């Protein structure tokens, strides 16, 4: 494992940096921007000019983190999922059953994945009375790739948290790749079983937000409401990307020229733009029943104390498999596509801002999911 390169805790220089800069992971613009960050200005964006200049410098840890965040990490953004279990009462001790070697047989967690091994096995860390964290690192080997990708580490974690004094026990899981998503699912299942067996919870299955938690109309309405943000911390957002798929089980498309062109012509549609909230597919509810929105990217402005900026958040349903119909089991996941800070912030402040933003997005999702469920019992006006 010693020759394994971990981009998160390592830093490159010289020939290795040159390989990275010349790779497709790093764009021409990113090399030039990093040069500008270092106070070096050259007109050409051609890598034959810029890479020798940059690879003959030492990058500061901040320079390197920004470069990696903007490129390699782009492909493995941390995605978050939320699910909850109900405790039998708010004072029940749910932490003690999680003590002990519950992940002794960690092979079970990765048995379906080829070339996958734990670098750090799942570890239970009890943080105070209300939080238990389970973190791990896996490595995937693929010798067909260049050194940058030959061995890739993926981190994952599951955070179990009792929300305030309530009965809700929340699972907040983070994954980057399909592999860690699958491991998280198994960890949550195992923890749920242990808690249920110990009598701490009434159910063995955590409740999450899935694709089939909604009908077509509710689902798009839910996505649309997510764009409202959480003012004043998170302002109203703009949709700048979405994936739409026609629902084959839905009634036939009406002859309305606004939408009839999709009939027999479109199965899936990716729309890239700005302020897509205003296009009829989102703005007009009468069309909601005919299609699925499986993913939207929303750009929000944020203001957190002295820090402000903008963040792009991707909301999507992540299917457990690629098989036909598996999308219906897809669980809602969100990830930060990008975060831009108005002022220069150091790595620590960045971590704090990102953590605050994650909590706000979680609140946003829970608030609108709850309102959707509550409205079900209320007759339409």
């Amino acid at each position, binding site marked *: 494992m010693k020759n394994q390169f971990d981009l998160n805790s390592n830093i490159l220089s010289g020939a290795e940096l040159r390989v990275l800069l010349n790779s497709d992971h790093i764009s021409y613009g990113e090399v030039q921007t990093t040069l500008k960050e270092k*106070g070096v200005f050259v007109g050409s964006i051609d890598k034959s000019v810029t890479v020798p200049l940059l*690879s003959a410098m*030492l990058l*500061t*840890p901040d320079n390197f983190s920004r470069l990696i965040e903007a490129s390699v990490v782009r492909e493995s953004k941390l995605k978050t999922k939320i699910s909850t279990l109900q405790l039998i009462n708010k004072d029940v001790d749910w932490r003690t059953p999680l003590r002990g070697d519950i992940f002794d047989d960690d092979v079970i967690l990765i048995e379906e994945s080829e070339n996958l091994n734990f670098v750090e096995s799942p570890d239970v860390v009890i943080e105070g009375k209300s939080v238990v964290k389970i973190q791990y690192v896996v490595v995937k080997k693929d010798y067909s790739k260049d050194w940058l990708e030959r061995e890739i580490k993926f981190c994952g974690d599951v955070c179990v948290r009792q929300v305030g004094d309530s009965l809700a026990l929340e699972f907040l899981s983070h994954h980057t790749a399909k592999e860690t998503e699958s491991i998280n699912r198994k960890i949550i299942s195992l923890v749920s079983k242990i808690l249920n067996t110990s009598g701490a919870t009434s159910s063995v299955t955590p409740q999450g937000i899935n694709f089939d938690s909604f009908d077509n109309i509710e689902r798009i309405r839910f996505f649309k409401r997510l764009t409202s943000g959480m003012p004043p911390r998170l302002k109203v957002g703009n949709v700048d990307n979405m994936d739409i798929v026609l629902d084959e089980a839905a009634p036939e498309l009406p002859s309305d020229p606004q939408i009839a062109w999709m009939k027999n012509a479109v199965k899936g549609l990716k729309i890239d733009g700005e302020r897509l909230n205003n296009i009829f597919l989102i703005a007009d509810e009468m069309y909601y029943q005919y299609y699925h929105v499986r993913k939207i990217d929303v750009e929000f402005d944020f203001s957190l104390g002295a820090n402000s900026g903008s963040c792009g958040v991707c909301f999507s349903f992540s299917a457990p498999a690629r098989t036909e119909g598996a999308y219906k089991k897809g669980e809602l996941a969100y990830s930060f596509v990008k975060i831009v800070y108005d002022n220069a912030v150091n790595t620590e402040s960045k971590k704090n801002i990102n953590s605050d933003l994650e909590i706000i997005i979680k609140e946003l999702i829970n608030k609108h999911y709850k309102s959707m469920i509550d409205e079900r019992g209320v007759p339409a006006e």
Partner: protein
Amino acid sequence: MGGELSKKSGEIGEDIAQNLLAQLGWKLTLDNFSVACNNDLHINKNGNSKVSHGEDRVYIYHNPFHDDSSEIVHISVKHTLNKYPSGATLKTHLKEYISELQETIDCARYSPELKTAISSHVLRKNKKHSGLLVWVSSHPDEVNRNIIRDLVNVRLDCEWKYPVYLIDNARAHFLANAVSGAKECFKAEEVEFFYPQMGTAITATEPRSGFFLPLELVASDILPVLYKDSERVELVFYANQHFSLDAYTKLLTYAMRFSYGLVSRIRIGMPDFNPAYHGNDVKSARMKFSDRREEIVPFCFNKTILNPASED
């Protein structure tokens, strides 16, 4: 700015630049000479062809990061008694200064004046021309002002062929602070800079240390210094980088990689290292290199009473 004040400002800028460059070991520079314009496309503000370009300074060195290369650095010094401009004006001034340097270099590289002036240097096969813009403000509120971070979004002219390296107040402050700290620490009159294995050099002919700081390290914001005496060899990294566990670990990675286990002590200097707050992070980072035997000494290079673990 009146003529007298402008002249005075120019002289102050020259003094600041000269002192700073001397700290970096750039002692033998060619100063204040004129290059005849040899490009008809160079036009002055009145729309007439330019007659000449003024070179503030030229410094030449053999580049330790690229094989068989000599670097000819054209230095332009800009000084203001006022604050740096802000917003769009800052970017406009930068573009103006860089364009001016591009024209100067473009004529200088074909100029008999420069050829004569540098004839005593034995240049290598590959001659590279670069610009160094020393842009400083003497305003008391700007002592440590970083304008580079305000210039990241500047749109560059794709016609600019020669790279231009910028030293602003913050960078000048860091470099001067680091060099004087190293001199004091080792009680040395000169600082021996360490040249890590980077760039495009593949041969083993280049020295890995010297007494001048190449442009590439000027812009790195990490200044590696080597100290040797009869008893020990030490490597010191001064990093213009706020302390965090992640940043410190990465700097340690550099130090471990470059030292090849041949030095007995490695010092890592950061501007805000505080042993009272960062002691555990230091231990945690050290554990990642538990097989290495070097003594690691973190320190703060901004002297305060809070840093007993100083460079001494």
